């Protein structure tokens, strides 16, 4: 296609990097969502709000201590605890019932959290300062180091999650519970505790993503809405409950959107992800990147 030649190579490369950076953060958020869905069949509508609140708590801790990394850790922990609380109060009572009730429940929670943020923090966007400034030259652009660091950090967190799941007792418990909750109980695995912890981990990851993403855009109460949408698309395209699939889908979709942004406005670039979803549902509804085993 000759129109590809009209795009300067450097723009393409920059968008590739942008796509990967956003993709990694999206992967972090999506991992949490898909982990939660895999183990307890819950689609956590409030996940976007956990992301948003993570960003806000990041702002608060940063304001109080001036230390970005402390803010990252603190916000993640706070959101993880919030996640556990949400699970215990609004999801555990619904465990035996139709999974659609959990959809409704988390939807109600998301409504409450969104408005809580609006109430506490106001509609004006806040900013999280980057932990370090500094750019390197990428063609004609001064590309901020920070963006690369986010991508690496997200990858590191996901990697840590993977290691945690693969080795270690708790990881075995999580995987066993995901595969067969009843037998896990029969083997003495404290399933109620495992479910709570997994929800907390998923929430914590969303919170961390919020802090990491904060410096890239403003922090405002509605940012969760965009992200829950993107995250849902990623998780469906990647295969619900499929961790590796979600990560691959996140990067894939972000790259496509980044490239699309070369031609259309960012607001319209999201249509790319919608199209990918529709195509996935038409041709490979279990997920583009799903393997045959879960």
């Amino acid at each position, binding site marked *: 296609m000759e129109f590809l030649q009209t795009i300067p190579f450097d723009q393409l490369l920059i968008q590739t990097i942008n796509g990967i950076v956003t993709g990694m953060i999206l992967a972090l958020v999506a991992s949490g969502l898909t982990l939660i869905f895999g183990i307890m*069949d819950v689609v956590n509508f409030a996940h976007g709000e956990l992301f948003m609140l993570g960003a806000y708590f990041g702002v608060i801790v940063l304001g109080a201590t001036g230390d970005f990394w402390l803010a990252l850790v603190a916000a993640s922990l706070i959101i993880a605890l919030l996640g556990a609380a949400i699970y215990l109060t609004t999801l555990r009572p619904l465990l035996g019932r139709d999974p659609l009730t959990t959809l*409704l429940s988390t*939807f109600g929670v998301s*409504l*409450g959290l969104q408005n809580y943020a609006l109430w506490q923090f106001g509609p004006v966007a806040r900013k999280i300062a980057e932990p370090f400034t500094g750019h390197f030259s990428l063609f004609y652009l001064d590309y901020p180091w920070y963006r690369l660091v986010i991508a690496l950090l997200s990858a590191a967190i996901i990697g840590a999650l993977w290691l945690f799941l693969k080795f270690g007792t708790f990881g075995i418990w999580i995987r066993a519970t995901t595969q067969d909750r009843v037998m896990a109980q029969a083997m003495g695995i404290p399933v109620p505790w495992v479910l709570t912890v997994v929800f907390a981990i998923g929430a914590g990851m969303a919170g961390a993503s919020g802090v990491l993403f904060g410096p890239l855009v403003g922090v405002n109460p509605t940012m969760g809405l965009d992200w829950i949408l993107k995250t849902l698309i990623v998780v469906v395209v990647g295969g619900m409950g499929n961790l590796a699939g979600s990560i691959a889908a996140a990067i894939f979709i972000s790259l496509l959107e980044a490239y699309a942004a070369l031609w259309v406005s960012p607001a319209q670039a999201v*249509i790319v992800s*919608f199209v990918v979803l529709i195509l996935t549902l038409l041709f490979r*509804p279990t997920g583009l990147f799903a393997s045959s085993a879960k």
Partner: protein
Amino acid sequence: MTAQPHTDPLPASREREGPAGRVGEGRHAAIYWTGFSVILALLVIAPLVLPEFWRRFLTEILIWGLLAMSSDILIGYTGMVSFGHSAFFGLGMYGAAASLTSLEPPNLWLAMLFGLAAAAAVAGFVAYFSTRLRDIYFAITTLIFSQIFYVVIFTWTEVTGGENGLTFSRPPLALPGLFSVPFTSQTLHWFVVAVVTLSYLVLRRITQSPFGMVLQSIRENEPRTRAIGYPIERYKIVAVMLSGLFAGLAGVLYAVQNQFAAPDFVFFLVSGEAVIYNVIGGIGTLVGPIVGAAFFLLLREGLSRFFTEYYLIPVGVIFVAMVIFMPQGLLGFMRRWLNE
């Protein structure tokens, strides 16, 4: 393993099964129609006694109630939770807007036609893609479709007015050749009451028809319904289109009432609200969603006076509590309470 038909050792319970609203035995029918007439009468008298604000409020309750009722066809009767109703509602609104901004003189019936056609088209589109999916995937897909339409409407500024939407004048209530009289707040209210009541009766008739029975059997046990030989997908598609039509009708009414169309109404949160009305009022009852809408909107109005800001937080909390403790909704709860 051979399936043995087992006799139910419990004595036949006096609890009648079947969809709520399905009455037809003697005494119950009499009570039902009496109640119906009373409420209808109240709705008709209302604009004559209520101050303007509350008049409009009541009209809005009916319109949102219609939207929620349309989604009850899917949630309550077919067992498919849809987050796509904002698309149907919004397209009904924009369809009407299109007719009212482009045609001179503005014609009410054409507006309805355009609105319903737009909603039906969208419903068909959404139905085609999403009905083959089950449960959660269906919900997510319909949600994303709402957003697709939202983005398209939001960004296609030349046609849809983008972020600002479209404004237009209210068409008169007219029968071509016979009369044309502009709406007053009162006559508009009566018009809405008429449309909503008619819609309710039509939907009620449909849910009690053989078609409606099949839908409910899909909700109860889809694999068995399929095994019996019903083409499930086709029934689901029709259900979605039916639902979409009435949602679109609500959109048209909204456009006529408020004289503007905005992309906010296509955003998936509006679908979410419709679902909330359903759950609060009681799914599978048709009337429940209207009650739910009334409850929710009144609650919101009341709480907004106390909390002034961010009254949605207690609303959210109440909603979650109802999902957990009162899943059968207000109507279901009342029915239990009355039966005891």
